[in-house]
């Protein structure tokens, strides 16, 4: 198995420029200068640096790790050191370390861990949306909606205005039951609502198997 390479890099994007963390198996992918030019996951995973670290605590010392290829060991050790330096609160440290673990685990395996829960403005989600597809707006609770983006190999559920995005595959075999067990009850409630709408909908039909499987797993682990 080819190992993943990591880089902390200043990238231009349509929203401005900032530091990102990139992980890819193909080193050539790390040479681009614009965020939008990077391929979507699972070929390349991207997070903004502040997803892991507090930008206020990043000092020039981190510069030694920037704009150069890092092995998994180098990358993880640098990020761990900075996460512990940036946050005092143990819970915050644990949460950021979990993010790091998930990021590295996906980059290492070259596979997305579904359900992939993130924010709609996550750089990975933005690049997946570039595939194009059908947007379907559904009614949810008071003053909130669910948008489902039916793409080629996966679908994205966005809960509006809560700003949660859930990336899911159409293939049930790709869903990780452990990740399903970790979903918050709010997310499960929203997905259950989509099941209700999906029955009899020609657009959402493709998502139904995976959504039903998630509901089944949640019933079992309860």
């Amino acid at each position, binding site marked *: 198995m080819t190992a993943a390479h990591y880089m902390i890099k200043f990238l231009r994007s*349509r*929203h401005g420029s900032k530091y990102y963390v990139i992980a890819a198996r193909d080193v050539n992918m790390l040479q681009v200068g614009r965020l*939008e*030019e990077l391929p979507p996951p699972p070929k390349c995973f991207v997070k903004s640096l502040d997803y892991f670290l507090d930008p206020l605590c990043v000092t020039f010392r981190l510069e030694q790790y920037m704009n150069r290829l890092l092995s998994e060991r180098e990358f993880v050790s640098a990020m761990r050191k900075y996460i512990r330096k940036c946050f005092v609160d143990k819970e915050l440290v644990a949460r950021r370390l979990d993010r790091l673990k998930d990021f590295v685990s996906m980059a290492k395996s070259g596979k997305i861990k579904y359900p992939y829960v993130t924010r*709609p403005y996550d750089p990975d989600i*933005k690049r997946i*949306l*570039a*595939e*194009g*597809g*059908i*947007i*379907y*707006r*559904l*009614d949810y609770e008071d*003053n909130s*909606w669910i*948008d489902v983006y039916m793409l080629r190999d996966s679908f994205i559920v*966005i809960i*509006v*205005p809560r700003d949660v995005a859930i990336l899911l595959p159409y293939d049930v075999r790709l869903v990780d039951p452990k990740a399903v067990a970790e979903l918050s009850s709010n997310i499960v409630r929203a997905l259950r609502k989509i099941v209700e709408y999906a029955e009899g909908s020609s*657009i959402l039909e493709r998502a139904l198997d995976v959504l039903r499987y998630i509901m089944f797993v949640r019933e079992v682990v309860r």
Partner: protein
Amino acid sequence: MATRTPGWSQAREGVDDPEVWGEPRATRKPPTRKVVVVDLLAKSVKAVLETFESYTYNPQTDAVVEVEFDDVGVVDGLFRYLPHGTSVGEAERVILEVLWGVVG
């Protein structure tokens, strides 16, 4: 003892009272959000999605925006997707231009 500047304090008193704005707060309709698909190349609105509506967007030309409307017009907008090679400022200009046409 605290001192007050007469002109400023009067203006502040007006702002602090919700009834001064005309309609009581409770009866004002909360803003609604809609998904708007804008063709940035043709500078036209392709779809304003109500609930249970769908649209196939073209990733090469279409911007997908979450737009907040109230009775008067566009309150705010959030980009869900922008085609590659488009800057936010450029897209914002086109979207506001075409949306004011739709709302007005």
